[in-house]
């Protein structure tokens, strides 16, 4: 429900708008600020999609260059960041296509469609389960786990939950319907949860030990 504050907030122009105006007026230093502001996010997103560091470096550079060249086409009815992310997602998918020549790559890849199954794994997690691992181990677990998700789920989870785009922005960025984003998000979250359970589940009570797994 919109509050008076949120309505007022919408009327206030996003700080990027002024920077973009300056860039359009020929001030490259304003673009420098925009690049600084979003380069880490773009690199992360590219890395999540391509799963390759060199590709992510290229994607990040190409996306910022492309955005700069196409800045005239930026309408301003979406956020600059969302527009930028869309360019980066497309660049990443293109890069993947080049890599796997002959194989089509899209965000629809690997999506099975059966819906609404209730997860069976009941194991509760230890309190603060990540503390049972050091930073390097935890990073490895999190990377491995998210890399195992189907591409189309992974991108939705990354944009929506990691990078904080809204459902609407995620849909717009990926060219998906809102229900499609919602259904993928739920399944991405549940699959990640289930996979992480292997590492984070509570140690079994004494009477249960020795019963396998």
């Amino acid at each position, binding site marked *: 429900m919109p509050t008076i504050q949120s309505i007022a907030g919408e009327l206030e122009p996003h700080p990027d708008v002024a920077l973009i105006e300056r860039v359009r007026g020929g001030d490259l230093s304003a673009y*420098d600020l925009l690049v600084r502001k979003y380069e880490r996010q773009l*690199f992360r997103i590219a890395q999540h999609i391509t799963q390759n560091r060199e590709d992510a470096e290229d994607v*990040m550079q190409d996306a910022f260059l492309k955005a700069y060249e196409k800045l005239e086409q930026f309408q301003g009815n979406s956020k600059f960041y969302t527009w930028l992310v869309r360019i980066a997602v497309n660049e990443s998918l293109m890069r993947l296509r080049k890599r796997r020549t002959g194989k089509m790559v899209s965000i629809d890849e690997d999506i099975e469609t059966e819906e609404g199954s209730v997860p069976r794994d009941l194991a*509760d997690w230890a309190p603060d389960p990540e503390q049972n691992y050091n930073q390097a181990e935890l990073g490895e677990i999190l990377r491995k786990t998210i890399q195992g998700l189907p591409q189309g789920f992974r991108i939705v989870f990354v944009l929506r939950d990691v990078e904080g785009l809204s459902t609407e922005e995620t849909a717009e960025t990926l060219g998906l319907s809102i229900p499609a984003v*919602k259904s993928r*998000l*739920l399944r991405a*979250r549940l699959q990640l949860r289930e996979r992480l359970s292997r590492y*984070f589940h509570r140690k079994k009570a004494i009477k249960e030990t020795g019963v396998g797994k």
Partner: protein
Amino acid sequence: MTCKEFLAHLDDLIDDSVTAEVRAELETHRGRCTHCEVIFNTTRKTIEIYRSHEIYELPTSLRDRLHTAIMARCKKAC
């Protein structure tokens, strides 16, 4: 409310976008069903962990190098 219905609202509950009425029903179900309580807590925790741990960090030296390269290419494109 069945577990399946609970699951259908799980995202909305996590994202805090349910009406007070539905929320009350969901909370009641959670209170009665360990299964859904576990799924709710661990799913929320999953999101929190991914949000708080940057798994693809951009080291400063690489960041500077890429930044310089981007700006140089933009300058050339002017």
